[in-house]
């Protein structure tokens, strides 16, 4: 699915990723953990193509294609989804309209006919119910005056509607209370299947109680310093980043 090889990236003069290598196969869930400033979110942005980051070295292969050659929307339409840490507000644009626009952009890209209003409404109703999202929220402007929890639920709703091959969750657990965390995690678990993959970026082991990863990686100072299975997350919780990064 995804093969990152010795990826180096900077912003301005500052090197942030200093040689990240990571492979994710179909059906796998990988967790990426690390302290502030270790390069977690940068990796998410570089993979999704945000333009203020400069890639200096390395390759990224996504479904057999060179990911770094694609622009932002090509990556998205090829099946890469980023659940944002801080989802953007778009005043005047109804949430459901935005969702429909996004779905149809992807369908158009893949030479599929657009979803008509009825088909879309059916799908939206089903997916919104799974996430405990009421229909009033879908009528409001996208993310405008949403609570932190509502914004994150909305991201997961988009994820389940767009059904990506690879979803990157950038600190989706931040700012969530326990109830919201459970609902969001259940949403992710429902979206999991044998054909897709997840990269879950988080500070805390807490989220991984709900979304069980197959692999856990620890990133420090722009490099993956340790990889293992779920037990690595527990070890990390116990010992702290500083000790683990040195080890």
């Amino acid at each position, binding site marked *: 699915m995804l093969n990152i090889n010795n990826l180096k990236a900077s912003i301005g003069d500052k090197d942030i990723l200093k040689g990240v290598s990571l492979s994710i196969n179909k059906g796998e869930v990988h967790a990426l953990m690390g302290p502030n400033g270790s390069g977690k979110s940068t990796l998410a942005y570089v993979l999704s*193509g945000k333009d203020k980051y400069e890639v200096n070295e390395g390759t990224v292969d996504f479904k057999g294609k060179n990911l770094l050659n694609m622009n*932002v*929307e090509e990556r998205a339409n090829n099946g890469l989804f980023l659940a*944002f840490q801080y989802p953007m*507000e*778009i005043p005047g*644009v109804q949430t459901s309209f935005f969702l429909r626009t*996004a779905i149809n*952009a992807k369908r158009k890209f893949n030479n599929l006919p657009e979803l008509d209003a009825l088909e879309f409404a059916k799908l939206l109703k089903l997916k919104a119910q799974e996430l405990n999202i009421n229909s009033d929220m879908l009528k409001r402007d996208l993310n405008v005056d949403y609570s932190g929890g509502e914004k994150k639920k909305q991201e997961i709703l988009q994820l389940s509607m767009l059904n990506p091959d690879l979803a990157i969750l950038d600190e989706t657990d931040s700012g969530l209370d326990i109830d919201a965390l459970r609902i969001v995690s259940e949403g992710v678990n429902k979206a999991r299947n044998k054909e897709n993959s997840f990269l879950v970026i988080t500070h805390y082991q807490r989220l991984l109680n709900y979304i069980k990863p197959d692999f856990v990686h620890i990133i420090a100072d722009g490099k993956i310093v340790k990889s293992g299975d779920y037990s690595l997350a527990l070890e990390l919780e116990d010992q702290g980043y500083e000790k683990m990064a040195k080890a």
Partner: protein
Amino acid sequence: MVASEQTIKQVNKLGSSDYKYGFSSDIESIQAPKGLNEEVVRFISKQKNEPEWMLEWRLKAFSVFNKLKKPDWAKLNFPEIDFQDYYYYSAPKSMKDKPKSLDEIDPEILKTYEKLGIPIQEQKILSGVAVDVVLDSVSIATTYKKQLSELGIIFCPISEAIQEHPDLIKKYLGSVIPVSDHSFAALNSAVFTDGSFVYIPENVRCPVELSTYFRINAINTGQFERTLIIANKNSYVSYLEGCTAPMRDENQLHAANVELIALDNAEIKYSTVQNWYPGDKEGKGGIYNFVTKRGACRGVNSKISWTQVETGSAITWKYPSCILQGDNSKGEFYSVAITNNFQQADTGTKMIHIGKNTSSKIISKGISAGNASNTYRGLVKIQPSATNARNFTQCDSLLIGNECGAHTVPYIESSNSGAQVEHEATTSKINEDQLFYCQQRGLSNDEAIGLIVNGFCKEVLQHLPMEFAVEAQKLVSINLEGSVG
């Protein structure tokens, strides 16, 4: 967030080739001699077969024009207009013996309108919309006329109304915009060529949207449109105008006067989608659009609502206004003005509160890209007699790139201490994080900008009649295509 370098590059790349209405048609025409003088005024009046009183009216206006100085308050920068360099009358030759039915119209003219997406053959007409079509100086066709006349509604070219409804014309023409108002108003009064006339009788709700489509085709031609709409007691009408012009290197001139009169309990909704040729990306060519639009709420409880989407023209100079004379009357102004490349717009409204309990609402959305300049200029005036007057004004500006400008110039003159006047204004830059978010969901750059800008304009666009709202949304997106990277 500052626009990236790529943004600016893309803005610069954007050329006039995107103006899809820029074709010209080969239609043989009759023109007045070039230039502006009394003879030309007489020529126009004669071509229109006008009665003596109309010619007198025009000549008086022309002498007023000669005495007035050009208005200079707007924040616009353009060379002095040489009024002698334009043709003031241009009519397709085939219109000389006016066609009696649509079948007799020159097929070249029909083709022109077909290309514009405005079918004027009755059977193909967009359901629920009656259309009057004006090419250069004459009206080509008015549809649905018969059905409307059964309700007593008059919808016809103003040149026809001068012949057939002289009492209404004499009573109302120039009653809202006096000939001496300013020099463009006087010029229009002297040389106006065509436009629409609408009369809605008492207690009639006009069942269809009335629409006029203006097109300048002939080279170096000024189009002087004159529109007069009268809504008698307890009546309602919704009117829409659209405009396009071919791409030409010379600046073309359009100076319109539009007058609206609403009597007791009457309501007029006037919508404009202005998409005149804006000039090329270096600022060459384009329409100079000097428009005077004014509505008088003469009756009690009357209402006039202006909605405009201004996307075209090199220069837009336009302040659709309301004179709120009748007690409890209401004025509204909803505006989206988009300027790109070297376009300049100075637009806004005047709300003059005279009657008791009058209220007005102004929502203005200005979007600037490229090297364009966009100014909101508005006046809210509360006369001493306007007890309990209320106004709410909101002006929002959105900037795309680093070379464009937005200005908000609100004037408030209140002579009644009981009045409530509120003004809110914001200026923001298009947020690159919003764009990235949309693109990460699979939208292209242009789709993302279209979505965000349409969201920004939503409060205004939702006031357009349904049939045109979708068109306007597309237009908003098209006019900014390629403006953000």
